[in-house]
């Protein structure tokens, strides 16, 4: 409260309509730069790494939605339309900055190098899944790639990101945390708590809101009355920028600048990326019940992949041939990986009780023993449990 607030003697209400938050954009849909815009420095290699991650994500989403439709997978969730937001922000970070995502950020993992097999093992919840088949498909996690395991309850990761980043600040190694979330999740109390704590404690954290227009069926006009999420930053005197979320270069540049503020000045930053969820919320959803095809078509015109590809082509870094080769290669690899993952056994029965604590408590070990005896008695009734029975002996003991 260092501000010298002036005093007035006629009551006047403000609403925030007094000013507005503009949208930062660099690329036009045809891949050319807006007048006055300057592209960020981006090497050929990095640009291609980015584009490949975007394309990987798009192909993965197409393949896995199809697999879900065929009944091979119980559930899937696409990030289609939001690849520039997610990959652009990730590319602006150090590879060992922490990512705490919501669930639609597979592009971040793709960019960092999570392999097709790693994706598939999680999606099929098999014995090789790092999460041991405990969470629904798309709940990825990777210690190697500094990507916190996804948790379904919305917004819980946002204050956690503040705590994580506070720890990074204490460690003093110049790392930061980014947390992704939807404009719907930003309605949760946890979001408010996180912004407040980050600004009071000057924490190196980047809050990246994917404002994609919907929370399942709920459009933004029923989610909030304000002009988007950005103005919430003013409530905490936090740095904020709004960016065209379908513009890879703009997202990249904004996040680079945000990271500088976060890491060098311990200033948390809110980024609102304006984008659109082109697909259904998930494989369980059908958006035809709550939005028009016209609206979807208008946004399909703003496809972030096409926009980035056009820019790459203008740089002379990409062409149709390469595009076709990449798509084919990805499809083949994914098909093969999917088959490999499906052939893997389920996690062992003992994995039901490990990791609840660092070690399996006695009472829980007893519960497992009873269950094992039961499964042995009726192996045909519990084919998955029976399959993993012997494989899992050491797992139960080790807790790993």
């Amino acid at each position, binding site marked *: 409260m260092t501000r010298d607030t002036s005093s007035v003697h006629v009551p006047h209400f403000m609403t925030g309509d007094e000013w507005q938050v503009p949208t930062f954009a660099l690329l036009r849909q045809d891949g050319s730069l807006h007048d006055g815009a300057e592209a960020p420095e981006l090497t050929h290699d990095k640009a291609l790494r980015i584009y490949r991650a975007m394309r990987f994500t798009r192909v993965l989403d197409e393949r896995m939605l199809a697999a879900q439709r065929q009944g091979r997978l119980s559930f899937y969730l696409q990030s289609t339309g939001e690849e520039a937001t997610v990959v652009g922000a990730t590319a602006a970070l150090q590879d060992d900055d922490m990512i705490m995502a919501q669930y639609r950020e597979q592009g971040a993992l793709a960019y960092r190098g999570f392999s097709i097999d790693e994706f598939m093992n999680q999606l099929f919840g098999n014995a090789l899944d790092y999460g041991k088949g405990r969470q629904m498909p798309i709940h990825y996690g990777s210690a190697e790639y500094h990507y916190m395991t996804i*948790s379904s309850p919305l917004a819980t990761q946002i204050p956690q990101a503040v705590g994580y980043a506070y720890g990074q600040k204490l460690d003093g190694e110049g790392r930061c945390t980014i947390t992704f979330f939807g404009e719907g999740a930003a309605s949760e109390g946890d979001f408010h708590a996180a912004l407040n704590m980050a600004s009071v404690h000057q924490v190196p954290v980047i809050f990246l809101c994917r404002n994609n227009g919907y929370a399942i069926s709920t459009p933004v006009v029923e989610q909030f009355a304000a002009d988007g999420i950005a103005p919430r930053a003013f409530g905490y005197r936090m740095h904020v920028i709004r960016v065209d979320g379908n513009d890879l270069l703009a997202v990249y540049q904004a996040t680079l600048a945000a990271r500088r503020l976060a890491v060098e000045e311990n200033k948390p930053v809110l980024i609102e990326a304006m984008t659109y969820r082109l697909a259904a919320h998930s494989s369980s959803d059908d958006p035809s019940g709550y939005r028009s095809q016209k609206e979807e078509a208008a946004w399909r015109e703003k496809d972030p992949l096409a926009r980035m590809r056009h820019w790459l082509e203008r740089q002379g870094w990409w062409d149709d041939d390469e595009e076709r080769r990449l798509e084919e290669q990805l499809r083949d690899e994914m098909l093969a990986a999917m088959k490999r993952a499906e052939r893997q056994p389920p996690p062992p*029965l003992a994995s039901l009780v490990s990791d609840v604590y660092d070690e399996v408590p006695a009472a829980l070990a007893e519960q497992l023993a009873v269950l094992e005896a039961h499964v042995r008695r009726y192996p045909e009734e519990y084919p*998955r449990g029976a399959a993993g029975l012997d494989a899992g002996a050491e797992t139960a003991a080790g807790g790993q």
Partner: protein
Amino acid sequence: MAHMNMLQAINQALDIAMDSDPRVICFGEDVGGFGGVFRATSHLQEKYGKARCFNTPLVEQGIVGFANGLAAQGHRAVAEIQFADYIYPAFDQIVNESAKFRYRSGNLFNVGGLTIRTPYGGGISGGHYHSQSPEAYFAHTPGLKVVVPRNPHQAKGLLLAAIRDPNPVLFFEPKRLYRASSGEVPEGDYQLPLGEAEVVKEGADITLVAWGAQLPVVEEAAELAERDGISSEVIDLRSILPWDRDCVAESVFKTGRLVISHEAPLTGGFAAEIAAAIQQRCFLYLESPIARVTGLDTPFPLTLEKEYLPDALKVLEAIRASVNF
């Protein structure tokens, strides 16, 4: 009578409640134009307008806080929490506020008009955040009523009673049965009593107690046990809070044996309360220890969900162990 599934029965109950009382208001995430992710509130906005059936922002603590205020003002607030797994952000509003509103004010104010509907339970490949059965948390909270229906007929009658009950009610809907359970349901307006259990099947040798989605499971176990020549009495508790001790005790006086089953983890689950109360009330009648067949003391898994769940075979084994004790 009409044949329908549980979702249709719930939708009908809401429709009748709104039609018969203009003070009934339904809201929650996606419940407005879309009709809820399970479609339990389908067509209600069309019929009763946006003021009485609407989407809320995505904030459970706000939904229940708003509902508490609306109920205190005199409306009948019917709030939906999209999954029971997501009810915890509203825990403070429910446990510290809804449950204590009347008591703390000496009955000057109350939120008796509040009903919170939420789908609970496993068996739908939901992993640990679309499968939880958190009823025991609320059953430890005086001031709340907690109700769980087992089929469409029960769902409609209990939900209408819950909405009209002058106390805050948590109404847990067994989502596994939303479409899987169907049956004959009276067309009109009717209510089933809260706080009363129902003997679903009479029997002589052992008492089986369950609620909601676990009812079909224990009924199946009872059938399997029948083949061993064991006659089971099956009780649907229907209300977890207050719960019908008399009904369970009467049965145990007769059978001398009790198995309780729920999906929630064993430790601190509501079966513990039933076992503790019944061992006291029926001490001299018990011929074997009261058994609990429940989820493991772990979060809810995915790939091995079938192994985790307290299914009919596991209940059968418990029945056998009890009878052969």
